[in-house]
């Protein structure tokens, strides 16, 4: 197992390298010259050139990439074009809030989705099942920006129970309760999306297992239903569920673009949009690389989890 993990980690290095080249080229191919965004109308051509030079845009693309890579390997991600702040500072400010929001959202989502999915499967075609499935349809088809705005309108503006957005009340000593207040609405919006997806997977997966012969055997052996559920049904339904978790995990790093914007959550998602709009290449590159690493780690984790769940899956070499 250790060898397998090591191999996977080693493979991901060239993958990351290729991603960085692809991202670098794509980012630089977007129309619009960043220098145009960071100059004032009264600047002369010479002054614009000075700004381009200060941003390092006056050199050939290849040199820019080599430079960027060399710096990146030493832990220097450069400075933002938009405000000249170090990229590392910007990313580290943003990473915490996104991790917090997304991990709580995922926990809340799974904590509701997994039981609901199992219940729906066990009561297949009952009213309860239809209600749960209807609920997932509702959540999947309800756009997050609308749900977010509706919640803000009801709970923040009209009822004045919760804050409209942000992560803290600025200018006050902030405690956990204040943070939790700010988390409630965005977590609801995020969790609604995650859970809708998950409920449907869990239901399908459990239904499939319930139809298997070994469940009938277990029933015939006279095992109690609870035991069957816990040791036979759940365990065997886990593989597809873990796959879904694997696709959700990278979002913990990448953030949620729309939800973060609506709730002014100072996370990676809203930073990404701002960086694209201002053609802030160094920040974009950092986000792309970070997201790529997150995806690779999530994939590896899922593969390891497969082996842990299902003894039939073994990784050799």
């Amino acid at each position, binding site marked *: 197992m250790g060898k397998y993990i090591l191999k996977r980690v080693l493979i991901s290095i060239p993958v990351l390298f290729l991603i960085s080249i692809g991202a670098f080229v794509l980012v630089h191919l977007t129309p619009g010259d960043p220098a145009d*965004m960071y100059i004032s109308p009264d*600047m002369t051509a010479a002054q614009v050139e000075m700004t381009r030079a200060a941003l390092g845009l006056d050199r050939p693309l290849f040199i820019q990439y080599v430079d960027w890579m060399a710096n990146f390997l030493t832990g220097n991600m450069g400075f933002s074009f938009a405000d000249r702040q170090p990229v590392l500072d910007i990313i580290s400010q943003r990473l915490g809030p996104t991790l917090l929001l997304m991990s709580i959202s995922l926990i809340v989502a799974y904590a509701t989705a997994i039981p609901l999915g199992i219940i729906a499967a066990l009561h297949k075609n009952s009213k309860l099942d239809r209600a749960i499935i209807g609920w997932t349809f509702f959540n999947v088809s309800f756009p997050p920006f609308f749900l977010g705005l509706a919640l803000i309108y009801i709970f923040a503006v009209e009822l004045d129970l919760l804050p409209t957005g942000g992560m803290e009340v600025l200018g006050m000593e902030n405690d956990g309760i204040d943070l939790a207040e700010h988390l409630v609405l965005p977590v609801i919006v995020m969790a609604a999306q995650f859970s809708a997806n998950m409920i449907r997977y869990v239901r399908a997966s459990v239904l499939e297992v319930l139809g298997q012969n070994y469940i009938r055997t277990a029933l015939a052996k006279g095992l109690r239903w609870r035991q069957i559920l816990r040791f036979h049904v759940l365990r065997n339904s886990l593989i597809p569920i873990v796959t879904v978790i694997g696709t959700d995990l990278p979002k913990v790093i990448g953030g949620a673009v729309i939800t973060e914007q609506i709730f002014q959550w100072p996370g990676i998602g809203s930073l990404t949009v701002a960086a694209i709009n201002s053609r802030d290449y160094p920040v974009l590159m950092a986000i792309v690389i970070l997201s790529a690493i997150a995806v690779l780690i999530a994939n590896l984790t899922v593969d390891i989890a497969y082996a842990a769940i299902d003894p039939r899956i073994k990784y050799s070499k």
Partner: protein
Amino acid sequence: MGLLSWIRKRKGLALAVCLALSVTMLAGCGGGSKGGGSSAGKKEALTIGMFNAPDSFNPLFNPGIAGQFTIRFMYDTLLGMPEINKFTPQLANSIDTTDNQNFTIKLNEKAKWTDGKPVTADDVVFTFNLIANPKVETTKGSYINMLEGTDSVGKRPDGTPIPDLVAVDEHTVTFRTKKPVDPNYLKSMLGFEVYIVPKHVFEKIDPANISNSDAVTKPTVTSGTYKFVSYKTNDHVELAANEDYYKGSPKLKKVFIRIMNGTNLVTELKSGNVQLAASGGIGSVPVKDLDVLKKDNKLIVKAVPSLNTQYLEVNNSNPAFNVKFRRAVTMAIDRQKICDELYKGTAQIVPTVYTKVSPVYDESVKPLPYDPEAAKKELAESGFDTSKEITLQVPIGNVLREQSADLIQQNLQAIGLNVKQQKLDFPTVLGNAKKGDYEMMLLGYGLTPDPDYSNYFVPGGSNNFCHADDPKLTEMMNNAASLPDAEARKAAYKEIQAYMRDNQFVTSLYETDQINVQSKNLVGGIKDFWEGSLDDLYQWHFE
């Protein structure tokens, strides 16, 4: 990994879920007491809502308006300007002259940097020389280019100090201009637009590297009302009162400038979490939400004329687009309808690029009327081949401007022009404007209080997007800019306005009002002259 460990894992999950749920529930209970936002601790903290993230805290290089606005909290200029051409002492008590060419700056002896050192004549001389240094990346050059020995962008190409710029004593600086200038012009440029930097900090930095140095990305030694505390990128700037501020300790102890979009700004203003909209193009509430805010009795909403105007640019370099054609275009457009229906009365028709706010605005110059019949007549006289298709380039992003394009297109079609719209992103339209690669386009300018707009109308001017090349206009503009006397200048610009109205080098569509929104209990706030808003910042407070 066996079954037991799996259960153990699930226990962890269950625990985490319980924790999350309890946090959520706690939040639900605690919500009522704090959601309102205006508890006692907040009285000394002001939160401002702004659309754009500040692009810079660098007093020498700040192309974006959001950066300029933020920097003014931290750095003082020599003079303040709460209204156009009305000056207040800041770091300087006065800038005086007897001959409009030799000037004397008298500094405020009480002014000091946040590290306790006094602001001296050496700092002023150092700042001007730094701006003139060819190695320094700066946007301030055009504010000092009247100084003797500087080129048109305010640089000393050989890198030597500016001649005749002298620190006479600790608090007196003298300098000389290339030729006599209107003192108000000099004060509004060099006095109001140039932030003085601390020599003892900036002299230690390589001039070529200032823009990326810590001194300007996380400023520590400043002279203004507030001190920089922190900046969370694209989220908020935190500022704290400079208790030793030379005009007096600021009454608001903290200022937060939060970055948010228009919809969020409206909800936050309504909920009281934001008490002031930055206004002025970087924080104006959307026109569609104005009624909602006006009904809120905790808020003050006010629309005042501004220097922001929208134009229909007609490419002057195309010989088919002659004077008659351009006049026909202007008279064909029902501008009042755009102002009333799209802007709900927060936009006003302007005769030329000079708006009511401009100190040289002349009321006797009336705008060309909306008169489709007269437009048809002049169009016929222009000899324009109406079967030819004309493309109108429309930049996307400004929703009202995009909507106005439909009305303009219909109006132009009504007089027989075959107009098609082409929507493009803003950087592309701007690039086409510079290259002259267009027939018609919609653009907006935010103009300066100083009336010299030769940049926009003289051949070779960096913003001559209409590609005007009219010898008479060029001569008039160059002459008016060089007059040292305020009254003579005003008279010259009056003539320019009449000439512009008659020739329609650009179709000035309308001026868009600056919309100020703030909490009723805030004393202070955005002024009618937006750039001068922070003049009395240290006295702002909540009632």
